[in-house]
């Protein structure tokens, strides 16, 4: 783990792996926010949970 330029079995370095992970987390957060909004609208305007 000491060498930051080490290429791991997947062909990525640690920095590249972290970059992919950042984007995946960001995408998940955006998806989550849209999902929360959609569920809020569904709760308000549909008989769901009423």
């Amino acid at each position, binding site marked *: 783990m000491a060498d930051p330029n080490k290429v*791991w*079995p*997947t*062909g*990525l*370095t*640690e920095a*590249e*792996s*972290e970059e*992919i*992970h*950042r984007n*995946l*987390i960001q995408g998940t957060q955006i*998806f989550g926010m849209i999902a929360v909004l959609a569920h809020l609208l569904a709760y308000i305007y*549909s*008989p*769901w949970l009423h």
Partner: protein
Amino acid sequence: MIYGKIWCVVKPSVGIPLFLSAVAIGSFAVHLALVTNTTWVKDFLQGGQKTAAAQPQAVKK
């Protein structure tokens, strides 16, 4: 970032589609269960409930 190094040992070409598929299948399953186990979804999507419910009152007058 926690777990940020996971893509050093899991190929993104395998892990990312697996992750997205898990989210999609899980979400679809929950919504399918909702549609098949409740009675109100069909009525809600059919619409027109408000006017149908309001009409008898109007007739009574």
